[in-house]
Structure formats: structure tokens, C-alpha cells
């Protein structure tokens, strides 16, 4: 079940080229080519685009995205290859023999300009009234090619209604250039398959099943399509106007919680390189904007570990000691709302395998409108809870009808990293230049919750706590860094042996705690299919994140995204976590305090069941 680039549907011709052994043109695996008159050697099978990029020769692209299979549809990357009648696309052309390539001949320049002019003629709207202004690949190309007029006209009328049905993703097909990155993201990268091209010729559009609104199809709200859209055809449902209104309302007590991943990425929105952590500057910015309190979602990440870890141990006890075969194992994590909607649609018969824990975002909402309100004597009705998340699915999650256990809407608004950056800019602040400040009490101490942001982080935190609860010792890894949990391979599996356990956990003596980690729903699908085939019977715990890379690659994070960018963000998180003094959730004093003062019947007790746990809906694939 290794992660590979091969996907179910990608046309075979678009899969990476396999080079036959003994190809006569292959000399030591390198091919000599000539680009713009200069000789180079490249490994056999390299695409012309990659070869040019390696030589710092710029070739414009639109439909190409390094996370996705090749499409070759926008045609903007055409080059001239000696001996060929037509201009091939450099993104799709594997070099297998000695080519002579020209990247900016007359024909190439003319064709590219023509293609650009054609795209612009059909691209509705103006740049200054567009949320992707200054971060749009089409706009960038128009500048690069010095476009100063619409040579072939320009559409003045809308042809498509904006689909605002979804809590998470908004589609404006009038901005679509039909690069199909969203299609390839949804079908190939995520294997969800909500978006596909329909009709043909001038009527071609990207559509959903039966052209239904996005809210009525199996969209999991992961927003990965947004992250890969070159224009403004896709965006997240932005609640910032409502949030400003709440901030401006003196009666409202507006509280924001910030997840681990936005702080590791928001700097990118201000021109900083990926992987620059902005935690403390962000705290300052949020206070300056006018949030009454700035809390760290890590607190409820720790709370999640307590609840979810306890739940796992209880399941193990029921299964191993009481031999109760109604207990479902492995237990799957439930923090990723994209993953939750995915399993509800695609594996509705397996919902009992999910941990019943709410996500950290929702736990925080419930805690703020109960415990925090009581502590500070604030009427929960006057509290507005905002969640700064790397995620578009969180917007749907906070609007789930069952997320009202505090008696109010637990989380009022889910806000993405991108939208937060916009608010900060609107407030006239330059984030990187702000002084540092801390999170607010009483949820200011955090521990391993920080690493929730990267794939494997939940597992790592859970293991640290569970291992120590059971054995009374720390996990046997240097600096508590459980390296098998880290990295980016699609599906990972490892185990930790439980030995010399405390007497109350004697049934776990000698047990290998087997766990799995997967990120991206295409990989989740692999795990679920294995579960269906009965191959996971020895696994105890599975972490699944809907987005490639985990939350740091979430659908609300800065655009663009790439493997390298995601790795840098993860690095920033792990670095910051390494500096924390408390590394285990149960050692977080705020956690001890909440169980002592409020959730007095302990993890998975009565009150936590009411406030911190939830249930799921069997949605299925057909939505009437």
C-alpha cells in the first residue's frame, strides 16, 4: 500500500513514462539534447518542461501542477521540436532521443500569445474585483506577455451562476479556464470524483453529478481543488464580513482559536518563504484586529488526545478482556472533517470504527461556551467563537446541526489562513513586522498538540500519552520524537511494544500496539479497502487526514502548494514543537485543570461525552 503517483483514472498515456531497458538512444541513461542551441544532457524520460526548468529556462504553464498527472490541455507551454510539424506541449513530452528544442521561436511566441488572448477573451470579470488579484496565474501570464488589450474581445455577461450552496467551497465557472486541475485533484489526487468536464466544444464546463449544487453531491469540502486552481474559479466560503461585524459589536465577546498549521504558513501570504513560523506575531495581529481573546487550538488537541487515547484503551479492554466482538478495531481518528465526510459518503457502514471524539476545533467551541463562559461569567449568548483553520472543511463542520452541545452554535465561524491574512492586511498590519505576544489564559500552555498539523502528528501525540499511561514510562524514542510517524509517504505502518505495563493495564502486557497513518483521501481509500478485505485485523489505531501532507496542506492554506512547500511547513511545526517544554498532553496543566474543575468524571466521562464527543451520519453516495 505504498503511495505512488499512479491513480485509478489517469489515462495510461499520462502516467509517468516507463523506459524500456536497452533503448538504443539511451547512453548511460542520459540523452543529449539541444535547447535554444545549447547542448545539455538529461536523464531519459525527463519531460521537456523539467529539462528546461533544470536549466532555468522559463516556460509558462497553466494546466500543469506538480501534484497532478499531466493534462497537456492549456497548450501554453508549447515548444518547437526540430522535425515536428506541430508544436508539442513541453509538460507532456518525454525526452527519449536527441531533440533540438526551441523555447521562444516566432511560432512559439505567437502561439502562446494567441492562447493567452483566447483565454482572456472568455475570462469574465476584472482583476481588481477578484480575490485572486495578485495571486492569479492567468493574470501573471498576461503581465509576462505584456497584454494591453483584448485582441479577440472580452465577455461582458455572466454565463454561469455562482454556486454558493456549499459551506466550504464556492465555484464561479465564469472564471474557469478549463485547465482541469480541479478535476485531476478531485478524481486522481483525492479519488473523490465530484468534478468532471461535461459537454463538449464551446459548451464544455466543469460540472458536478447532474450539475447539482456542490452542497448536494459527495464533495468532502477538503478544498484541495481551491489550492490548485490557477484563477478565482474556486474559493472558500469567506465569513470575514460577519466576523468584522462581530468584532465591531461592543456587546460581543469575540474569541479566536488558532490551529497549528496556519501559523506555519501565513507568512507566505506576506511574501515570506514557506516554513517561516509566525505564531507570536499572529497572536499580536489578532489582538490588534480586535479579538477579545486569542487561544491556541493545541489545548483541545491535547484534550482530544486524552479523550481519544482513553477511548482507544477502553476499546482495547473491551475487545481483549471482555471479548466483546461488537467493539470495532482499529479505531480511526476523527479530527479531519474532510475525512469524516469522506467516510460518511463512501464507507457509511464503517462509521463505528471512527473515534467518537469531536475535532479539536469543535471541542474548543463547546468548552468556550460552557467552561470558559462560566469561569469568566460571560453569557454564552454573547460569545462569538472563531476558528482560524488551515481548512475549508472546518466551515462545513462547524455548521453541522449536531455541533450545538454547549446549547449554542459551538463554533460560529471557520476562517482559513488565506482569509485571516486578508483581514490582517485590511487592518493595515504587516504581520512579519509585528512584535511577539503570547496566547491568552487559561488555555495558553500547549504540548504535543502542535504537531497535529502534519500527517502523523495525532498518532505521535496519542502514542506518547497512551504509552506512558499504560507503562508509566516515556515512549522509547529520543526527545520523544516517534520518527516512524513522520514523513510523507502515503500510508505508513509501525508498532510499539507495550512491556512492563502498570498492573491495571496487565491485559496489554507484551502487546504490539500497531498503528497506521494515511493522508489524502486516495490513501484513506487504500486503507478502507484493506479494512474491507479484513486485512487490518491486527491494527489498533489509524490516523487519517483528508489532505495530502495533513493539515499543513489543508484547503485553506496559502496558494500555491507543492510537496516542497508542504515539507517546509511541516518542518516549521516540528521545529517549534521541539522547543516546547511540555511534550505530552496529560502533562499540560490546563488539561489537568479542566478535568479537575469541570470535566470531573474524567476522560470519556459523562460530561465529556455530552460536550466533546459526537456521532456521524450515514450519507452514502446517492444524495436525493
Amino acid at each position, binding site marked *: 500500500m505504498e503511495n505512488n503517483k499512479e491513480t485509478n483514472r489517469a*489515462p495510461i498515456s499520462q502516467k509517468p513514462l516507463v523506459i524500456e531497458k536497452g533503448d538504443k538512444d539511451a547512453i548511460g541513461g542520459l540523452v543529449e539534447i539541444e535547447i535554444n542551441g545549447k547542448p545539455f544532457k538529461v536523464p531519459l524520460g525527463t519531460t521537456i518542461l523539467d529539462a528546461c526548468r533544470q536549466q532555468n529556462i522559463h516556460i509558462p504553464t497553466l494546466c500543469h501542477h506538480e501534484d497532478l498527472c499531466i493534462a*497537456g490541455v492549456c497548450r501554453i507551454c508549447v515548444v518547437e521540436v526540430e522535425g515536428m510539424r506541430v508544436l508539442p506541449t513541453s509538460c507532456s513530452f518525454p525526452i527519449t532521443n536527441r531533440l533540438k528544442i526551441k523555447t521562444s521561436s516566432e511560432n512559439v511566441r505567437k502561439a502562446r500569445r*494567441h492562447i493567452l488572448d*483566447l483565454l482572456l477573451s472568455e475570462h469574465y470579470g476584472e482583476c481588481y474585483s477578484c480575490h485572486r488579484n495578485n495571486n492569479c496565474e492567468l493574470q501573471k501570464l498576461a503581465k509576462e506577455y505584456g497584454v494591453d488589450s483584448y485582441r479577440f474581445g472580452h465577455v461582458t455577461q455572466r454565463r454561469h451562476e455562482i454556486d454558493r450552496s456549499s459551506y466550504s467551497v464556492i465555484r464561479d465557472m465564469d472564471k474557469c479556464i478549463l485547465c482541469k486541475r480541479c478535476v485531476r485533484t478531485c478524481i486522481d489526487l483525492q479519488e473523490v470524483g465530484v468534478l468532471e468536464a461535461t459537454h463538449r466544444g464551446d459548451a464544455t464546463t466543469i460540472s458536478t453529478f447532474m450539475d447539482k449544487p456542490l452542497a448536494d453531491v459527495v464533495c468532502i469540502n477538503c478544498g484541495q481543488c481551491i489550492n490548485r486552481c490557477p484563477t478565482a474559479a474556486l474559493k472558500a466560503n469567506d465569513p470575514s464580513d460577519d466576523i468584522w461585524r462581530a468584532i465591531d459589536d461592543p456587546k460581543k465577546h469575540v474569541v479566536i482559536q488558532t490551529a497549528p498549521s496556519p501559523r506555519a504558513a501565513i507568512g507566505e501570504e506576506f511574501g515570506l518563504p514557506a516554513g517561516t513560523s509566525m505564531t507570536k506575531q499572529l497572536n499580536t495581529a489578532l489582538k490588534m484586529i480586535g479579538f477579545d481573546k486569542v487561544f491556541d487550538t493545541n489545548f483541545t488537541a491535547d484534550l482530544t488526545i486524552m479523550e481519544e487515547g482513553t477511548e482507544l484503551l477502553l476499546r482495547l479492554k473491551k475487545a481483549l478482556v471482555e471479548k466483546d466482538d461488537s467493539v470495532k478495531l482499529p479505531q480511526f481518528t476523527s479530527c479531519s472533517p474532510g475525512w469524516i465526510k469522506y467516510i460518511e459518503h463512501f464507507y457509511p457502514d464503517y462509521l463505528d470504527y471512527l473515534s467518537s471524539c469531536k475535532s479539536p476545533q469543535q471541542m474548543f467551541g463547546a468548552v468556550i461556551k460552557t467552561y470558559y463562559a462560566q469561569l469568566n461569567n460571560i453569557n454564552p449568548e454573547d460569545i462569538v467563537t472563531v476558528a482560524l483553520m488551515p481548512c475549508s472543511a472546518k466551515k462545513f463542520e462547524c455548521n453541522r446541526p449536531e455541533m450545538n452541545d454547549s446549547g449554542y452554535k459551538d463554533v460560529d465561524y471557520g476562517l482559513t489562513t488565506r482569509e485571516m491574512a486578508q483581514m490582517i492586511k485590511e487592518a493595515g498590519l504587516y504581520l512579519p513586522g509585528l512584535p511577539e505576544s503570547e496566547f491568552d489564559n487559561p488555555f495558553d500552555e500547549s504540548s504535543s498538540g502542535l504537531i497535529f498539523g502534519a500527517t502523523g502528528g495525532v498518532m505521535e501525540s496519542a502514542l506518547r500519552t497512551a504509552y506512558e499511561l499504560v507503562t508509566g514510562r516515556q515512549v522509547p524514542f529520543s526527545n520523544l520524537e516517534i520518527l516512524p510517524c513522520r514523513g510523507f509517504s502515503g500510508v505508513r505502518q509501525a508498532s510499539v511494544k507495550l512491556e512492563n505495563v502498570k498492573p491495571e493495564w496487565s491485559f496489554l502486557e507484551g502487546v504490539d500496539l500497531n498503528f497506521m497513518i494515511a493522508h489524502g483521501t486516495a490513501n484513506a481509500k487504500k486503507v478502507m479497502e484493506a479494512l474491507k478485505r479484513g486485512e487490518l485485523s491486527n491494527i489498533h489505531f489509524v490516523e487519517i487526514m483528508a489532505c495530502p501532507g495533513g493539515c499543513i496542506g489543508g484547503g485553506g492554506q496559502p496558494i500555491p502548494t507543492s510537496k516542497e512547500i508542504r515539507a517546509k511547513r511541516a518542518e516549521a511545526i516540528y521545529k517549534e514543537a521541539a522547543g516546547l517544554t511540555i511534550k505530552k498532553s496529560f502533562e499540560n496543566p490546563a488539561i489537568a485543570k479542566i478535568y479537575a474543575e469541570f470535566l470531573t468524571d474524567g476522560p470519556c466521562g459523562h460530561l465529556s461525552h455530552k460536550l466533546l464527543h459526537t456521532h456521524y451520519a450515514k450519507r452514502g453516495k446517492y444524495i436525493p
Partner: protein
Amino acid sequence: MPIKNKSVIFDRENLNKENPKEFLYKALKMSPSDLILEVRESGLKGRGGAGFPTGTKWMLASAAVSDKKFVVCNADEGEPGTFKDRVLLDEFSDLVFYGMIMCGYAIRANKGFVYLRGEYRYLLDKLLKYLDKMHEENLLGKNILNSGFDFDIEIRLGSGAYVCGEESALIESLEGHRGESRNRPPFPVNTGYMGHPTVVNNVETFATVPIIISRGAEWFTTVGTLNSKGTKLISVSGDCKEPGVYEVPFGISINDILKLVKAENTKAVQVGGASGHCVPKEQFDRALSFEDLSTGGSIMIFNESRDMLHILKNFMEFFVEESCGQCTPCRIGNIKLLEGVEKVEAGDCALSYIKELIELGKSMQLASKCGLGQSSPNPFISIMTNFENEIFSQR
């Protein structure tokens, strides 16, 4: 509908004398490489329009390494004005199927598909019955004619899009996907149906091979021109007394064709269907051949009463609708060309804008992903260039 003139190849009476089954015997007794060699020596080029040398295509597929290979007969016949494959499937299906078997034998494929145009569904029963009969006679299935070679043929109905006649879009469609053409390279001979080496040939190409095998490559090369050997079936329509399917030797001039079909007062001839070239009267001495006027079979005749702009508009409307919509130059480019025609029609278009659109057309020819977009500007460019006076003086 029979072939109208006296045929060299597709003449049932002659063929029956030779007994076509013998062709298959003969082919299966040859070695695969000799068979390919014979096809190569004949100089046969694809009859579907692109004119790629058939022997070379087979050789490439035969050299490709794979546990499975496939043969596909392109019977999508979607080019406006073409109907010659229908005649072949109706009256010479034995030759078509034998050609496919020979190809399979040559490249070591055991499975063939006929991708039959949806509108030809009415032929399906007859073709299936014929395949059954071939099975009974051990001309198909396991160990054909005791040669040790297995081959089977399956007929699939097309999905009604013009682009599905393009070989890689056809393969996508066969695989159950949306009919959209693929990037090339890789070519179908290496990475075709389900990723396996695949030969896609036109109906007429396959039907010609058995004759070449039977009468020999040398015989075949005696007909035609230097680079276009043999005869070609053409589908003639439009302003003439005797439209229909004709078998003509390559090298025949437009003038001779017009005489053959009894056309009078001809103003222009569209050679090669909607995506072909429009030939004005002054050029009627040009010859039908891969060197000069290449065609998949469509010949449309327009007399003096026809409005060239109107004809062009029809063609462009066809492309705007039939573009698969995948790539920018074709999807939007054709819209712009059609808009240009409409502007001229409305009398509000400067000649300079048409010149600009012709430049756009040239970029479309170079940068489109498949043959559709690469050839759709042809009628625009040839009609706007050759009939500039007529079009602009009238308005």
C-alpha cells in the same frame, strides 16, 4: 449502395473469382515479418486521412514489447461528407475482417475491436452474423485455419462525437472514458488501448491489405503516384448529377473527378471534408494524392450558386460544436473564427481582423492537441484566402 465506377480492388465479381478466404490462408502461411514487409513494400498509406505508412505503423507495433497488443478498426466515419466506409462494411466486411486478422497476426495481437459509428448501428446485426460465420469456418477464434494463431473481433458502438474518430480519443472512448484525445508521444503503437501497443487503422486500410497480400506489393505499386500507391475510395456529394462512392487511382485530378460524377458549373471543391481544403476553380488541375490534395475520402462539390461564406459558416459551426473542448486553441479558437465569419456576414468586419484570425488559425494548426483543432482552421484559411474577393465584394 454499390461503388459506382469500375473498381480495381473493390469489385465483388473479380474477388469471388480469387476466393478471398485464400488470402487469409496465404497470409497466415507467411511469417509475420514477411507480411509486414509486403505491406511496407506496397507503399500503402492510411486511408483515414492522415496517410501514415501502414507497414511502418505495423512494424512499430510489432517491435513494441508487451504481453498484450490490440488491433482497432476505425469505423467511426465522422468526417462530414464521407460514407465510403459504410459501403465497405456493408459489402466488403470479409476484406475488412481479414485485414484486421492479418494485422493481428503481423503484430502478435489476439484481439481486435471495430469501433463502429453509432449511426451505423443498423449494420451491427449483419456484421455480428458475419463474425459468427467466420467463427464457424475457423476463420476467427482459436487456432485460425490451423495456423496456431488465435484472434477475435469485438464490435463496439461509438458514442456519437466526431472527435472519437481521432485515434487516441477513440481509444479513450473504448476504455470507457470521455472521448478526448491524448498527448503524443506516446503513440498508440506503443501505449494504446489499456496502455498496450495498439494499431488503429481505417476500414479501407484494412480492406486493402488482403488484396495486397494476394496480388503482391508489386502489383499494388503499379497504380497511383510516386508517394501515393493504389486506389482511393472517395465519397462524392454536393452539386453533381451522380453523387456516390467511387474508386479512383491516386493522382486523378479534380477535373477528372468532376467529369466522372457529372458536375457542371463547379465553383469550388472541398477536398477532405470539413477539415479539408477548399479548392477554387483555377486549381482544378491539382491531383488527389498525399503529395498534393490529401483526403480521407470526402469530396464536396459546390457550383456557382453557392455562397462560400455560408459554406464556411457551416463548417465552423460544426467545429465549434464538435471540438472536444479540451484544449484552448481549438475550444476557443474555433469560436473566434466563427464569430469572424458572422461579423463578415453582418457586414461589420475589417479585412485586417480576418487577417488576424488567419494568423490565429495558423497558431491553432500548430498548437492544438489533436488533428481536429490542427485542421479545423483549414477551411477558414483556404476559403477566406481563395474567395476573399467574392466574400468581401458582396458585402
